């Protein structure tokens, strides 16, 4: 098993009456609710936590991209990853990912990801989400019905740019570049591992299998609700005649560890409820612009896609419900271990994106929970897939001899001889 410590970077100062006063945490959230002076501290706390996670032995540290969003303060995840690349040296940098439809031209993603891979010594995991409709369509103005077509084209350009050793012309429908020539190139060959974060679009499964990319189901609704979707994915894997390595799939799960189950509630309940009640308060039409989902997916899910139903689930949630229905895996190390084993085996996943910081959780609680997990839970879950122990197809392949930037202190030593020429 690979464990990645993930921070969504929520804004922790949403007012108590946020739900009543505002229709959405995303897209048209009043920007007056953001205070850049407080934001300074918030960013540094979150970055510190990601660095701390590496020191605890997590395999990866992760970030993602959202726009105009009160629970995701990373319009540019690459900036966060760049900061992490300089202060860490072992963990994979999981950027899950860049919503490539919104980059103009998409070669920008090939370049920035290559920079991150080079700076980090080959530690990048590159995510290519289609992007949520909130981000891609409502914030970044992409036409819903053409989003997937444009995504395919952007993906083609990026992969070709990484693969090609010669400049080439790219005559796309949405992007025309006479000279594509990615410079620099990534360290990892033929390219960094690619993760495709998906919601419930069935087309995404085939896309992942066409290219042997990792399928990451990023849901905040827990593994019980994720099961039917992952079952569908694995059915598709079998139908396509692919091996069933659990490393083909990743899942995101909110986790809270304390000494006892009761203490978990006392420590973490209010912060998880903050997350579910305020951070996931999205105006339903923003989640479902016509054309974003293909007709096949609309018909497949039809009414379950009506996000009003989803929003309904989020009203009046209690801690008991969050825990009983496994939105949140919370409790003593033993409780968390048991439930996570069920989650990992049930979903058949090799990668777990662990969400320890939730909502407005203070730093010390986040660290406490992460540390207990790293010391008392993670070791027991490491070898759940012994038969796939050596399957590294969906993990980073860094350089052996790499710079340890956190150990270098520029200016503290005399200039090296070779600099003097």
């Amino acid at each position, binding site marked *: 098993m690979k464990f990645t410590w993930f921070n969504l970077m929520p804004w922790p100062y949403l007012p108590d009456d946020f739900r009543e006063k505002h229709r959405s945490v995303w897209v048209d959230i009043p920007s007056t609710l953001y205070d850049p002076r407080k934001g300074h501290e918030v960013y540094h706390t979150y970055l510190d936590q990601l660095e701390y996670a590496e020191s605890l032995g997590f395999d990866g540290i992760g970030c993602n991209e959202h726009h105009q969003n009160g629970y995701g303060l990373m319009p540019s995840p690459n900036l966060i990853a760049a900061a992490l690349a300089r202060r860490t040296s072992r963990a994979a940098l999981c950027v899950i990912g860049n919503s490539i439809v919104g980059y103009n031209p998409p070669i920008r993603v090939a370049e920035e990801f290559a920079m991150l891979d080079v700076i980090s010594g080959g530690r990048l995991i590159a995510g290519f989400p289609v992007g949520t409709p909130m981000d891609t369509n409502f914030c970044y103005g992409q036409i819903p*019905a053409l989003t997937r077509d444009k995504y395919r084209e952007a993906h083609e350009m990026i992969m070709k740019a990484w693969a090609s050793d010669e400049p080439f012309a790219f005559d796309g429908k949405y992007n025309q570049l006479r000279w594509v020539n990615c410079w620099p190139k990534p360290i990892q060959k033929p390219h960094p591992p690619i993760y495709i974060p998906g919601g419930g679009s069935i087309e995404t499964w085939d896309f992942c299998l066409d290219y042997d990319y990792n399928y990451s189901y990023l849901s905040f609704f827990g593994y019980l609700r994720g099961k039917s979707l992952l079952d569908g994915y694995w059915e598709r894997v079998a139908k396509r005649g692919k091996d069933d390595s659990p490393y083909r799939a990743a899942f995101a799960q909110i986790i809270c560890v304390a000494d006892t189950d009761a203490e978990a509630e006392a420590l973490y309940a209010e912060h998880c409820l903050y997350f579910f009640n305020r951070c996931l308060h999205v105006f339903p039409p923003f989640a479902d612009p016509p054309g974003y989902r293909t007709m096949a997916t609309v018909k497949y899910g039809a009414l379950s896609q009506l996000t009003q139903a989803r929003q309904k689930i989020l009203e009046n949630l209690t801690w008991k419900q969050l825990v009983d229905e496994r939105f949140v895996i919370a409790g003593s190390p033993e409780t968390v271990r048991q439930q996570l084993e069920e989650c990992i085996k049930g979903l058949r996943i090799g990668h777990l994106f662990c969400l320890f910081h939730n909502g407005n959780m203070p730093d010390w609680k986040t660290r406490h929970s992460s540390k207990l997990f790293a010391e008392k839970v993670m070791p027991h879950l490491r070898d759940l897939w012994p038969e796939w122990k050596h399957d590294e197809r969906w993990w980073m392949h860094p350089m052996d001899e790499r710079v340890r930037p956190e150990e270098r202190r520029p200016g503290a030593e005399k200039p090296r001889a070779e600099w003097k020429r």
Partner: protein
Amino acid sequence: MKWHTVETKKGTRCRVLEGGSGAPVVFLHSAGGLLRDNSFLDQLAQRYSVFAPEWPGYGESTGEELLEDMLDFALHGWDLVDALGLRQPHLVGHSMGGMIAAEMACLAPRDLGKLVLVGAAGLWMDEHPIPDIFAMLPHQIAEVLFADPQQGQALLTGGADLSDMEALKDFYVASQRRLAMAGKILFPIPNRRLSKRLYRLTAETLVLWGAADRLIVPAYAERWKALIPNARVQTIDGAGHMLPYEQPEAFVRTVGSFLG
């Protein structure tokens, strides 16, 4: 009025509601499609040969994947005129249909008779931002579309019983398909730079507006008039954006006296 299906040279298959006799009039529907209660077409058909095509992506018309941008849409309009064997028809376009009709007229100004733009989309004024129809709850849509939202809601659902899950599902799927198509020229802002081309219009143009239009407010009528060389504006009381459905008699009377 009867439904026929025509195939365009490009390969779309479109259902067309046809009827009447007289000078040919092509009616292009709005982003929501032709509503079921469209008595204004019957009334128009008493004086004209009326052709009301369903756009690809609407109802039984197919081939939506062949149309991606404004040029595709406008050429498809002319492909339909060809497939129907019409010469110099009058074009009457409502909302999104008005945007398409205006674009058609800019491309081929000598190929039409007169032009009627009814609450037409296609322009943008910063001082009058058009509400985002792609970010609305169902009841909010009726509120911006109709002078009388309650009556409008019934017109929108066309009498379907939405407490029935199957009916609701069908309605949802069809509505997603329609607006996915409309989004290709209306999302995120319904402006594909028509204003740069309107100087080309030679057709006599009537800009017709519902006085209570809350989606594209009547100030837009004046903007169209300012941009089109030979246009006049007429406003109809007691109607919102869905004017032809809300005030069919007044609509037909006004269009009839303009077309002659």
